[in-house]
Protein backbone atom coordinates (compact mmCIF):
# COMPACT_ATOMS: atom_id res chain seq x y z
CA UNK A 1 0.00 0.00 0.00
CA UNK A 2 2.82 2.27 0.93
CA UNK A 3 4.47 1.47 -2.39
CA UNK A 4 1.33 2.51 -4.24
CA UNK A 5 1.15 5.75 -2.32
CA UNK A 6 4.76 6.56 -3.07
CA UNK A 7 4.16 5.73 -6.75
CA UNK A 8 1.24 8.16 -6.87
CA UNK A 9 3.39 10.81 -5.25
CA UNK A 10 6.19 10.19 -7.72
CA UNK A 11 3.80 10.46 -10.66
CA UNK A 12 2.34 13.69 -9.28
CA UNK A 13 5.81 15.02 -8.70
CA UNK A 14 6.89 14.19 -12.26
CA UNK A 15 3.77 15.72 -13.77
CA UNK A 16 4.31 18.82 -11.59
CA UNK A 17 7.87 19.15 -12.86
CA UNK A 18 6.59 18.73 -16.41
CA UNK A 19 3.97 21.43 -15.89
CA UNK A 20 6.51 23.75 -14.34
CA UNK A 21 9.00 23.36 -17.17
CA UNK A 22 6.25 23.95 -19.74
CA UNK A 23 5.15 27.13 -17.96
CA UNK A 24 8.76 28.35 -17.64
CA UNK A 25 9.25 27.75 -21.36
CA UNK A 26 6.07 29.63 -22.14
CA UNK A 27 7.13 32.52 -19.89
CA UNK A 28 10.53 32.71 -21.58
CA UNK A 29 8.89 32.79 -24.99
CA UNK A 30 6.39 35.47 -23.96
CA UNK A 31 9.05 37.68 -22.38
CA UNK A 32 11.38 37.19 -25.33
CA UNK A 33 8.98 38.58 -27.89
CA UNK A 34 8.67 42.10 -26.32
CA UNK A 35 12.44 42.16 -25.74
CA UNK A 36 12.93 41.51 -29.40
CA UNK A 37 10.49 44.17 -30.44
CA UNK A 38 12.09 46.59 -27.94
CA UNK A 39 15.50 45.78 -29.32
CA UNK A 40 14.30 46.64 -32.75
CA UNK A 41 12.62 49.85 -31.68
CA UNK A 42 15.58 51.94 -30.55
CA UNK A 43 16.91 52.55 -34.04
CA UNK A 44 14.02 54.85 -34.96
CA UNK A 45 12.98 55.63 -31.36
CA UNK A 46 16.18 56.71 -29.60
CA UNK A 47 17.31 59.35 -32.05
CA UNK A 48 13.82 60.82 -31.95
CA UNK A 49 14.06 61.13 -28.17
CA UNK A 50 17.56 62.49 -27.93
CA UNK A 51 17.83 64.53 -31.08
CA UNK A 52 16.31 67.97 -31.18
CA UNK A 53 13.02 68.38 -32.91
CA UNK A 54 12.17 71.37 -34.95
CA UNK A 55 8.78 72.92 -34.54
CA UNK A 56 6.22 71.36 -36.83
CA UNK A 57 5.22 73.31 -39.88
CA UNK A 58 8.51 75.09 -40.07
CA UNK A 59 10.88 72.47 -41.30
CA UNK A 60 10.38 69.05 -39.69
CA UNK A 61 13.72 67.50 -38.84
CA UNK A 62 16.53 69.79 -37.83
CA UNK A 63 18.82 68.68 -40.61
CA UNK A 64 16.47 69.74 -43.36
CA UNK A 65 15.37 72.83 -41.49
CA UNK A 66 18.93 73.95 -40.91
CA UNK A 67 20.01 73.32 -44.48
CA UNK A 68 16.95 75.05 -45.89
CA UNK A 69 17.60 77.88 -43.50
CA UNK A 70 21.27 78.15 -44.46
CA UNK A 71 20.46 80.12 -47.57
CA UNK A 72 18.39 82.67 -45.66
CA UNK A 73 20.93 83.20 -42.89
CA UNK A 74 23.08 85.52 -44.92
CA UNK A 75 20.25 88.01 -45.35
CA UNK A 76 18.15 87.80 -42.23
CA UNK A 77 20.53 86.93 -39.35
CA UNK A 78 18.93 85.64 -36.19
CA UNK A 79 16.12 83.30 -37.09
CA UNK A 80 16.25 80.34 -34.75
CA UNK A 81 15.42 80.15 -31.07
CA UNK A 82 16.55 77.01 -29.28
CA UNK A 83 14.07 76.51 -26.46
CA UNK A 84 15.10 74.34 -23.53
CA UNK A 85 12.47 73.15 -21.07
CA UNK A 86 14.79 72.26 -18.20
CA UNK A 87 14.96 68.92 -16.35
CA UNK A 88 12.65 66.04 -17.39
CA UNK A 89 12.75 62.26 -17.17
CA UNK A 90 13.92 61.13 -13.77
CA UNK A 91 14.83 64.71 -12.83
CA UNK A 92 11.65 66.58 -11.86
CA UNK A 93 13.53 69.77 -10.93
CA UNK A 94 11.91 71.93 -8.26
CA UNK A 95 8.93 70.34 -6.53
CA UNK A 96 6.14 72.13 -4.74
CA UNK A 97 4.19 70.86 -1.78
CA UNK A 98 1.08 70.65 -3.96
CA UNK A 99 2.77 68.17 -6.31
CA UNK A 100 3.84 70.79 -8.85
CA UNK A 101 6.90 69.64 -10.80
CA UNK A 102 9.20 72.08 -12.57
CA UNK A 103 9.88 69.63 -15.42
CA UNK A 104 6.17 69.42 -16.32
CA UNK A 105 5.40 73.13 -16.04
CA UNK A 106 8.33 74.23 -18.20
CA UNK A 107 7.21 71.83 -20.93
CA UNK A 108 3.77 73.47 -20.90
CA UNK A 109 5.39 76.92 -20.87
CA UNK A 110 7.51 75.90 -23.86
CA UNK A 111 4.39 75.26 -25.96
CA UNK A 112 3.23 78.84 -25.42
CA UNK A 113 6.69 80.34 -25.83
CA UNK A 114 7.13 78.47 -29.10
CA UNK A 115 3.81 79.73 -30.40
CA UNK A 116 4.66 83.34 -29.52
CA UNK A 117 8.10 83.02 -31.15
CA UNK A 118 6.65 81.53 -34.31
CA UNK A 119 4.26 84.47 -34.53
CA UNK A 120 7.35 86.69 -34.51
CA UNK A 121 8.73 84.69 -37.45
CA UNK A 122 11.26 82.59 -35.56
CA UNK A 123 11.95 78.95 -36.17
CA UNK A 124 11.91 77.11 -32.85
CA UNK A 125 14.00 74.08 -31.99
CA UNK A 126 13.20 72.38 -28.68
CA UNK A 127 15.78 70.40 -26.74
CA UNK A 128 13.06 68.05 -25.53
CA UNK A 129 9.46 67.51 -26.57
CA UNK A 130 8.36 65.02 -23.95
CA UNK A 131 9.44 63.69 -20.61
CA UNK A 132 13.07 63.00 -21.53
CA UNK A 133 16.13 64.32 -19.77
CA UNK A 134 18.92 65.13 -22.23
CA UNK A 135 22.23 65.96 -20.55
CA UNK A 136 23.43 69.54 -20.24
CA UNK A 137 25.86 68.87 -23.06
CA UNK A 138 23.18 67.31 -25.27
CA UNK A 139 21.07 70.42 -24.86
CA UNK A 140 24.04 72.66 -25.64
CA UNK A 141 24.80 70.50 -28.69
CA UNK A 142 21.35 71.26 -30.02
CA UNK A 143 22.03 74.98 -29.75
CA UNK A 144 25.63 74.85 -30.95
CA UNK A 145 24.65 73.02 -34.12
CA UNK A 146 22.44 75.91 -35.22
CA UNK A 147 23.59 78.96 -37.06
CA UNK A 148 22.02 82.25 -36.10
CA UNK A 149 20.31 80.97 -33.00
CA UNK A 150 19.70 82.22 -29.50
CA UNK A 151 19.18 79.88 -26.57
CA UNK A 152 16.50 80.18 -23.89
CA UNK A 153 16.32 77.72 -21.00
CA UNK A 154 13.07 77.74 -18.99
CA UNK A 155 12.96 77.16 -15.23
CA UNK A 156 10.55 77.40 -12.31
CA UNK A 157 12.18 78.20 -8.97
CA UNK A 158 11.52 76.87 -5.48
CA UNK A 159 11.86 80.28 -3.89
CA UNK A 160 11.42 83.96 -4.68
CA UNK A 161 8.38 86.19 -4.74
CA UNK A 162 5.56 84.25 -6.45
CA UNK A 163 4.40 85.86 -9.66
CA UNK A 164 7.81 87.27 -10.62
CA UNK A 165 10.28 86.19 -13.30
CA UNK A 166 14.03 86.65 -13.56
CA UNK A 167 16.43 86.37 -16.46
CA UNK A 168 19.96 85.06 -15.84
CA UNK A 169 23.03 85.20 -18.01
CA UNK A 170 26.18 83.24 -17.24
CA UNK A 171 28.71 84.70 -14.82
CA UNK A 172 32.08 85.76 -16.18
CA UNK A 173 34.06 83.02 -17.87
CA UNK A 174 37.79 83.45 -18.42
CA UNK A 175 38.60 81.80 -21.74
CA UNK A 176 37.60 82.89 -25.20
CA UNK A 177 39.42 80.73 -27.73
CA UNK A 178 42.39 78.41 -27.79
CA UNK A 179 45.43 78.73 -30.05
CA UNK A 180 43.61 77.21 -33.02
CA UNK A 181 40.83 79.79 -32.77
CA UNK A 182 38.25 77.25 -31.66
CA UNK A 183 36.03 77.91 -28.67
CA UNK A 184 36.67 75.44 -25.81
CA UNK A 185 33.47 73.48 -25.21
CA UNK A 186 33.48 73.97 -21.46
CA UNK A 187 33.64 77.75 -21.82
CA UNK A 188 31.65 78.09 -25.04
CA UNK A 189 29.52 80.87 -23.61
CA UNK A 190 32.47 83.19 -22.91
CA UNK A 191 32.55 85.10 -26.24
CA UNK A 192 28.77 85.49 -26.21
CA UNK A 193 28.42 86.94 -22.71
CA UNK A 194 27.96 90.51 -23.91
CA UNK A 195 25.30 89.49 -26.42
CA UNK A 196 23.61 87.28 -23.84
CA UNK A 197 23.46 90.25 -21.48
CA UNK A 198 21.87 92.48 -24.15
CA UNK A 199 19.34 89.78 -25.02
CA UNK A 200 18.67 89.07 -21.33
CA UNK A 201 18.13 92.75 -20.51
CA UNK A 202 15.58 93.05 -23.31
CA UNK A 203 13.61 90.00 -22.16
CA UNK A 204 13.86 91.05 -18.49
CA UNK A 205 12.57 94.52 -19.43
CA UNK A 206 9.43 93.02 -20.98
CA UNK A 207 9.01 90.65 -18.03
CA UNK A 208 9.30 93.53 -15.54
CA UNK A 209 6.50 95.38 -17.35
CA UNK A 210 4.27 92.35 -17.06
CA UNK A 211 5.20 90.94 -13.66
CA UNK A 212 5.56 93.53 -10.92
CA UNK A 213 8.36 92.86 -8.47
CA UNK A 214 10.63 91.36 -11.13
CA UNK A 215 14.07 92.95 -11.58
CA UNK A 216 14.61 95.49 -14.37
CA UNK A 217 17.76 93.95 -15.79
CA UNK A 218 19.16 90.47 -16.26
CA UNK A 219 21.26 89.06 -13.44
CA UNK A 220 24.33 86.89 -13.64
CA UNK A 221 24.69 83.42 -12.15
CA UNK A 222 26.87 80.38 -12.79
CA UNK A 223 24.15 78.46 -14.59
CA UNK A 224 25.62 75.17 -15.79
CA UNK A 225 23.40 74.93 -18.86
CA UNK A 226 24.51 78.29 -20.21
CA UNK A 227 28.27 77.69 -19.86
CA UNK A 228 28.60 75.25 -22.78
CA UNK A 229 26.25 77.09 -25.13
CA UNK A 230 27.93 78.91 -28.03
CA UNK A 231 25.13 81.39 -28.69
CA UNK A 232 23.49 84.32 -26.93
CA UNK A 233 21.93 82.36 -24.08
CA UNK A 234 19.63 83.19 -21.19
CA UNK A 235 17.86 81.32 -18.42
CA UNK A 236 14.34 82.47 -17.55
CA UNK A 237 13.21 81.46 -14.07
CA UNK A 238 9.65 81.95 -12.93
CA UNK A 239 8.69 81.98 -9.23
CA UNK A 240 7.66 79.54 -8.00
CA UNK A 241 6.54 75.94 -7.42
CA UNK A 242 5.38 76.96 -3.93
CA UNK A 243 2.11 78.43 -5.26
CA UNK A 244 -0.87 76.52 -3.89
CA UNK A 245 -2.71 76.38 -7.18
CA UNK A 246 -0.95 75.41 -10.37
CA UNK A 247 -3.25 77.76 -12.26
CA UNK A 248 -1.31 80.69 -10.74
CA UNK A 249 1.73 79.55 -12.73
CA UNK A 250 -0.25 78.67 -15.84
CA UNK A 251 -1.62 82.20 -15.90
CA UNK A 252 1.95 83.50 -16.16
CA UNK A 253 2.77 81.45 -19.27
CA UNK A 254 1.33 83.86 -21.90
CA UNK A 255 3.16 86.82 -20.34
CA UNK A 256 6.45 84.94 -20.18
CA UNK A 257 6.00 83.73 -23.77
CA UNK A 258 5.22 87.24 -24.99
CA UNK A 259 8.24 88.73 -23.18
CA UNK A 260 10.64 86.16 -24.63
CA UNK A 261 9.24 86.57 -28.15
CA UNK A 262 9.32 90.37 -27.99
CA UNK A 263 12.81 90.28 -26.47
CA UNK A 264 14.09 88.00 -29.22
CA UNK A 265 12.49 90.19 -31.90
CA UNK A 266 14.04 93.33 -30.36
CA UNK A 267 17.42 91.59 -30.13
CA UNK A 268 17.35 90.42 -33.77
CA UNK A 269 18.84 93.56 -35.37
CA UNK A 270 21.75 93.75 -32.92
CA UNK A 271 22.98 90.20 -33.50
CA UNK A 272 25.41 89.64 -36.35
CA UNK A 273 25.19 85.94 -37.01
CA UNK A 274 28.55 84.13 -37.17
CA UNK A 275 29.43 82.51 -40.49
CA UNK A 276 29.53 78.96 -39.12
CA UNK A 277 27.64 77.22 -36.32
CA UNK A 278 29.45 77.67 -33.04
CA UNK A 279 31.86 80.30 -34.44
CA UNK A 280 32.76 83.49 -32.62
CA UNK A 281 30.23 86.27 -32.98
Amino acid at each position, binding site marked *: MLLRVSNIFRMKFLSLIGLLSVSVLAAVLVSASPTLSQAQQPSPGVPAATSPTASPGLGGAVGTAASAFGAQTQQSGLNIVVLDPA*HGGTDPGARGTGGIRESEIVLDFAVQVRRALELQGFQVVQTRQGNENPSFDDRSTTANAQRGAVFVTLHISSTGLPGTARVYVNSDLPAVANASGLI*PWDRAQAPFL*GLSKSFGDLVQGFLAQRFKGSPDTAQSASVRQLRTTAAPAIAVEVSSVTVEDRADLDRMAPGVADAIARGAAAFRPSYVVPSAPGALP
Partner: protein
Amino acid sequence: MTPSWRFWLIGGLVVAVLAAAIYFPILRRRVKRAARLQQQSEEQARRELTQPIAINPGEPRVKAKLFWAADAIDSTLVPVTAELPLSNDPVLRSKQILNTLLAGPVDTELRTLPPDALLLAFYLLPDGTAIADFSEALATSIPSGIVSEQLAVNSITRTLEANVPQVQRLKILIHGQEVETLAGHLDLTGTFVVNTNVAQEPPNPAPTPAGTDKPASPARAAKAPASVLATLTADKAPGKLGQTESRP
Protein backbone atom coordinates in the same frame (compact mmCIF):
# COMPACT_ATOMS: atom_id res chain seq x y z
CA MET B 1 6.39 2.08 8.64
CA THR B 2 4.68 1.40 11.91
CA PRO B 3 1.99 3.71 13.20
CA SER B 4 4.10 4.64 16.25
CA TRP B 5 7.00 5.71 13.99
CA ARG B 6 4.63 7.85 11.93
CA PHE B 7 3.18 9.35 15.10
CA TRP B 8 6.61 10.39 16.35
CA LEU B 9 7.58 11.81 12.95
CA ILE B 10 4.42 13.93 12.68
CA GLY B 11 4.73 14.91 16.31
CA GLY B 12 8.33 16.03 15.78
CA LEU B 13 7.37 18.02 12.71
CA VAL B 14 4.52 19.74 14.56
CA VAL B 15 6.87 20.63 17.40
CA ALA B 16 9.44 21.99 14.93
CA VAL B 17 6.80 24.10 13.17
CA LEU B 18 5.51 25.43 16.47
CA ALA B 19 9.02 26.23 17.67
CA ALA B 20 9.76 28.01 14.40
CA ALA B 21 6.49 29.96 14.61
CA ILE B 22 7.42 31.16 18.09
CA TYR B 23 11.10 31.78 17.40
CA PHE B 24 10.76 33.50 14.01
CA PRO B 25 9.17 36.77 15.27
CA ILE B 26 11.76 36.95 18.06
CA LEU B 27 14.56 36.48 15.54
CA ARG B 28 13.09 39.14 13.27
CA ARG B 29 12.86 41.61 16.16
CA ARG B 30 16.50 40.91 17.07
CA VAL B 31 17.71 41.45 13.49
CA LYS B 32 15.76 44.70 13.28
CA ARG B 33 17.21 45.90 16.58
CA ALA B 34 20.74 45.02 15.46
CA ALA B 35 20.28 46.91 12.19
CA ARG B 36 18.99 49.94 14.05
CA LEU B 37 21.92 49.83 16.46
CA GLN B 38 24.37 49.62 13.58
CA GLN B 39 22.70 52.55 11.84
CA GLN B 40 22.84 54.55 15.05
CA SER B 41 26.48 53.78 15.58
CA GLU B 42 27.28 54.76 11.99
CA GLU B 43 25.41 58.02 12.48
CA GLN B 44 27.26 58.49 15.76
CA ALA B 45 30.62 57.82 14.11
CA ARG B 46 29.81 60.27 11.31
CA ARG B 47 28.82 62.91 13.81
CA GLU B 48 32.01 62.37 15.77
CA LEU B 49 34.06 62.63 12.59
CA THR B 50 32.31 65.74 11.44
CA GLN B 51 32.12 67.36 14.83
CA PRO B 52 32.07 71.10 14.18
CA ILE B 53 35.29 72.80 15.13
CA ALA B 54 34.58 74.05 18.59
CA ILE B 55 35.01 77.73 19.02
CA ASN B 56 37.69 78.20 21.63
CA PRO B 57 36.56 80.87 24.10
CA GLY B 58 40.23 81.69 24.67
CA GLU B 59 40.61 83.07 21.14
CA PRO B 60 40.34 86.81 20.74
CA ARG B 61 36.78 87.89 20.00
CA VAL B 62 36.47 89.59 16.65
CA LYS B 63 33.57 91.07 14.76
CA ALA B 64 32.61 88.53 12.13
CA LYS B 65 30.27 89.23 9.23
CA LEU B 66 27.88 86.48 8.27
CA PHE B 67 25.77 86.73 5.12
CA TRP B 68 22.24 85.46 5.44
CA ALA B 69 19.07 86.19 3.43
CA ALA B 70 17.60 89.67 3.72
CA ASP B 71 14.08 88.28 4.11
CA ALA B 72 12.21 85.05 3.61
CA ILE B 73 11.33 85.58 -0.07
CA ASP B 74 13.94 88.06 -1.20
CA SER B 75 16.99 86.77 -3.03
CA THR B 76 19.49 89.24 -1.59
CA LEU B 77 21.95 88.85 1.24
CA VAL B 78 22.58 91.09 4.22
CA PRO B 79 25.60 90.95 6.52
CA VAL B 80 24.93 90.18 10.16
CA THR B 81 27.73 91.17 12.52
CA ALA B 82 28.50 88.85 15.40
CA GLU B 83 31.34 88.84 17.93
CA LEU B 84 33.01 85.44 17.70
CA PRO B 85 36.24 84.06 19.14
CA LEU B 86 37.98 83.17 15.87
CA SER B 87 41.36 81.58 15.30
CA ASN B 88 44.08 83.39 13.38
CA ASP B 89 44.85 80.27 11.36
CA PRO B 90 42.99 80.73 8.04
CA VAL B 91 41.88 77.08 7.75
CA LEU B 92 40.61 76.87 11.33
CA ARG B 93 39.05 80.30 11.02
CA SER B 94 37.28 79.29 7.77
CA LYS B 95 35.92 76.15 9.44
CA GLN B 96 34.68 78.14 12.43
CA ILE B 97 33.03 80.78 10.30
CA LEU B 98 31.43 78.28 7.89
CA ASN B 99 30.10 76.20 10.78
CA THR B 100 28.55 79.33 12.25
CA LEU B 101 27.04 80.10 8.84
CA LEU B 102 25.68 76.54 8.58
CA ALA B 103 24.22 76.78 12.09
CA GLY B 104 22.07 79.57 10.67
CA PRO B 105 20.62 82.82 11.92
CA VAL B 106 18.23 83.18 14.84
CA ASP B 107 15.36 83.58 12.40
CA THR B 108 15.44 80.23 10.58
CA GLU B 109 13.54 81.66 7.62
CA LEU B 110 16.64 83.66 6.73
CA ARG B 111 18.81 80.56 6.32
CA THR B 112 20.69 80.24 3.08
CA LEU B 113 21.95 76.69 3.65
CA PRO B 114 20.02 73.55 4.63
CA PRO B 115 19.98 72.92 8.40
CA ASP B 116 21.26 69.34 8.01
CA ALA B 117 24.26 70.26 5.83
CA LEU B 118 27.70 69.74 7.39
CA LEU B 119 31.16 70.97 6.52
CA LEU B 120 33.18 67.76 6.19
CA ALA B 121 36.57 69.22 5.33
CA PHE B 122 38.25 72.48 4.44
CA TYR B 123 41.64 72.91 2.77
CA LEU B 124 43.56 75.97 1.69
CA LEU B 125 46.11 75.65 -1.11
CA PRO B 126 49.15 77.93 -1.19
CA ASP B 127 47.74 79.88 -4.17
CA GLY B 128 44.72 80.96 -2.13
CA THR B 129 42.32 78.37 -3.54
CA ALA B 130 40.16 76.94 -0.80
CA ILE B 131 38.37 73.61 -1.08
CA ALA B 132 35.27 73.18 1.02
CA ASP B 133 33.78 69.71 1.21
CA PHE B 134 30.16 69.64 2.33
CA SER B 135 27.91 66.70 3.18
CA GLU B 136 25.38 65.52 0.62
CA ALA B 137 22.60 67.35 2.44
CA LEU B 138 23.87 70.62 0.97
CA ALA B 139 22.88 69.34 -2.48
CA THR B 140 19.85 67.25 -1.58
CA SER B 141 18.11 69.50 0.96
CA ILE B 142 18.57 72.85 -0.74
CA PRO B 143 15.51 74.16 -2.60
CA SER B 144 16.20 73.55 -6.30
CA GLY B 145 16.41 76.67 -8.46
CA ILE B 146 18.88 79.20 -9.83
CA VAL B 147 17.93 81.83 -7.28
CA SER B 148 18.16 79.59 -4.19
CA GLU B 149 21.35 77.82 -5.26
CA GLN B 150 23.02 81.11 -6.15
CA LEU B 151 22.01 82.56 -2.79
CA ALA B 152 23.57 79.59 -0.98
CA VAL B 153 26.90 79.85 -2.79
CA ASN B 154 26.93 83.65 -2.47
CA SER B 155 26.41 83.42 1.27
CA ILE B 156 29.41 81.07 1.56
CA THR B 157 31.75 83.08 -0.69
CA ARG B 158 30.81 86.46 0.74
CA THR B 159 31.13 85.25 4.32
CA LEU B 160 34.59 83.85 3.56
CA GLU B 161 35.54 87.05 1.75
CA ALA B 162 34.53 89.19 4.72
CA ASN B 163 36.33 87.11 7.33
CA VAL B 164 39.23 85.17 5.80
CA PRO B 165 41.29 87.41 3.49
CA GLN B 166 43.66 84.54 2.58
CA VAL B 167 40.89 82.74 0.66
CA GLN B 168 40.84 83.98 -2.91
CA ARG B 169 38.92 81.29 -4.74
CA LEU B 170 36.58 78.55 -3.55
CA LYS B 171 35.97 75.10 -4.91
CA ILE B 172 32.92 73.33 -3.51
CA LEU B 173 32.86 69.54 -3.25
CA ILE B 174 29.94 67.39 -2.19
CA HIS B 175 30.94 64.43 -0.02
CA GLY B 176 34.47 64.53 -1.40
CA GLN B 177 33.37 64.53 -5.03
CA GLU B 178 33.29 67.15 -7.73
CA VAL B 179 29.70 67.48 -8.88
CA GLU B 180 28.32 69.17 -11.98
CA THR B 181 25.69 71.25 -10.24
CA LEU B 182 24.57 72.04 -6.71
CA ALA B 183 20.93 71.00 -7.19
CA GLY B 184 20.43 70.95 -10.94
CA HIS B 185 21.29 74.53 -11.80
CA LEU B 186 24.36 76.15 -10.30
CA ASP B 187 27.66 75.11 -11.82
CA LEU B 188 30.08 73.59 -9.29
CA THR B 189 32.70 72.37 -11.78
CA GLY B 190 34.77 75.52 -11.50
CA THR B 191 35.95 77.76 -8.70
CA PHE B 192 34.16 80.79 -7.34
CA VAL B 193 36.03 84.05 -6.91
CA VAL B 194 35.97 84.91 -3.22
CA ASN B 195 38.29 87.84 -2.80
CA THR B 196 37.33 90.45 -5.36
CA ASN B 197 40.54 92.42 -4.90
CA VAL B 198 42.75 89.55 -6.00
CA ALA B 199 44.33 89.59 -9.47
CA GLN B 200 41.74 88.20 -11.84
CA GLU B 201 41.88 85.81 -14.73
CA PRO B 202 42.07 87.41 -18.20
CA PRO B 203 39.09 89.65 -18.76
CA ASN B 204 36.45 88.89 -21.36
CA PRO B 205 36.26 90.81 -24.60
CA ALA B 206 32.51 90.91 -24.12
CA PRO B 207 31.14 93.47 -21.69
CA THR B 208 31.11 92.13 -18.17
CA PRO B 209 27.64 91.40 -16.85
CA ALA B 210 26.95 93.08 -13.55
CA GLY B 211 26.87 90.70 -10.60
CA THR B 212 23.69 90.32 -8.66
CA ASP B 213 25.06 91.73 -5.48
CA LYS B 214 28.78 92.19 -6.03
CA PRO B 215 30.47 95.01 -7.85
CA ALA B 216 32.60 93.88 -10.79
CA SER B 217 36.30 94.43 -10.29
CA PRO B 218 37.74 97.31 -12.31
CA ALA B 219 40.32 94.96 -13.86
CA ARG B 220 37.51 93.10 -15.59
CA ALA B 221 36.42 96.11 -17.60
CA ALA B 222 39.75 96.17 -19.44
CA LYS B 223 40.03 94.43 -22.78
CA ALA B 224 42.74 92.13 -24.04
CA PRO B 225 43.50 90.87 -27.54
CA ALA B 226 42.24 87.40 -28.34
CA SER B 227 45.76 86.11 -28.97
CA VAL B 228 46.80 86.90 -25.39
CA LEU B 229 43.73 85.13 -24.08
CA ALA B 230 44.42 82.15 -26.27
CA THR B 231 47.94 81.68 -24.92
CA LEU B 232 46.76 82.08 -21.38
CA THR B 233 43.97 79.56 -21.55
CA ALA B 234 44.90 77.00 -24.16
CA ASP B 235 46.42 74.48 -21.77
CA LYS B 236 43.56 74.24 -19.32
CA ALA B 237 41.96 70.85 -19.15
CA PRO B 238 38.20 70.67 -18.75
CA GLY B 239 36.69 69.62 -15.47
CA LYS B 240 39.71 70.51 -13.36
CA LEU B 241 40.36 73.08 -10.75
CA GLY B 242 40.62 76.55 -12.11
CA GLN B 243 38.85 75.57 -15.30
CA THR B 244 36.06 78.03 -14.76
CA GLU B 245 36.15 80.91 -12.44
CA SER B 246 32.70 82.08 -11.76
CA ARG B 247 31.79 85.21 -9.99
CA PRO B 248 28.65 84.36 -8.08
